[in-house]
């Protein structure tokens, strides 16, 4: 329904502004309706400004900046309507150390309410996990699960 969408849009936008600032350590990010007059049909654009940089076309952002912006948006949607769990498959791959650090801490905070299943190669991300499962293929083509850590 139109009212539901408007409500969700404004609330998620608020969360997005927060998660963006937290993940980038500054700057500002928000959603804009492509057509504010037509709420039924309008698409959504992103206005993104990493810390200290000017507002520019979101296409010009770097690989890591795009990934971090997308993560900020997804986590904002998640905060608005938490699901029983969240699966993140190597979302931290393009991030540098400083960004992985802020990302992993945000996940750790959000996981007070909900289970996060994070597939990763990154040591910093592994550090904030309560439990860790290793997947091995000792026998080629056959996966086995090993519980590496379990509080």
């Amino acid at each position, binding site marked *: 329904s139109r009212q539901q969408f408007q409500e969700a849009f404004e609330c998620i936008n608020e969360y997005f502004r927060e998660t963006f600032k937290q993940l980038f350590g500054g700057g500002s990010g928000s959603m804009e309706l492509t057509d504010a007059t037509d709420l039924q049909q309008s698409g959504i654009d992103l206005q993104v400004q990493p810390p200290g940089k000017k507002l520019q076309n979101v296409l010009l952002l770097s690989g890591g900046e*795009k990934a971090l912006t997308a993560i900020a948006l997804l986590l904002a949607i998640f905060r608005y309507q*938490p699901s029983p769990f969240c699966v993140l498959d190597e979302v931290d791959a393009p991030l540098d150390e400083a960004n992985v650090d802020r990302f992993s801490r945000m996940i750790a905070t959000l996981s007070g309410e909900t289970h996060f299943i994070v597939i990763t190669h990154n040591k910093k991300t592994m550090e904030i996990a309560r439990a860790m499962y290793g997947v091995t293929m000792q026998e080629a083509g056959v996966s086995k699960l090993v519980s590496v850590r379990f509080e």
Partner: protein
Amino acid sequence: LRLSRIQMIGFKSFCEKAEIMFAEGAGVTAIVGPNGCGKSNIADAIAWVLGEQSVKSLRGSSMEDVIFNGTRERQPMGLAQVSLTLVDPEFTRESVGEVSPVEQEEMFEEAASPAGQLSGSESEPAAVARRRKRFEPKPGEVVVTRKLYRSGESEYYLNGRLCRLRDIQELFLGTGLGPNSYAIIEQGRVGQILSSKPMDRRMLIEEAA
């Protein structure tokens, strides 16, 4: 609703029974390992048991691709099966029934036998009927199970009772766990979100609304 356990057998590279337990009270669970060992296959299993129908999202060319198709040393299997257990104090014995851990193990033993065949002298309908009768979740537990036979037959269970795919999809409507979900982010999808069209982003918000 909170996640309690994932079990699978015969799903992609997991020809042997695999289980992930989730502790009381949320938290982060990391899944690690070398390239190609099966981590994303676990994410696929979760999407699949929740009703994912897009073969492309599961990286296959047909749905049959999710069944373990053998290695040089091992035969392909005849059945892929994934079970997801969630807990919610609001669920009562009447609304969805119950299942005890013992019966759930049995369900997986069946799948584990060669090519997912039923061994022994029972005819299939009788054995399945008997199994369904005993498959009772604990109060507050919801067990979602999906099976795919190599013949192409599909089965869906809610707490051990056969149901339709739609029943499972409806159970998770509005929880972000449907298709085009914001709760399951597959490998490489993060990059696409920003290059997607404005209408795609709208759909993401609508899914949550």
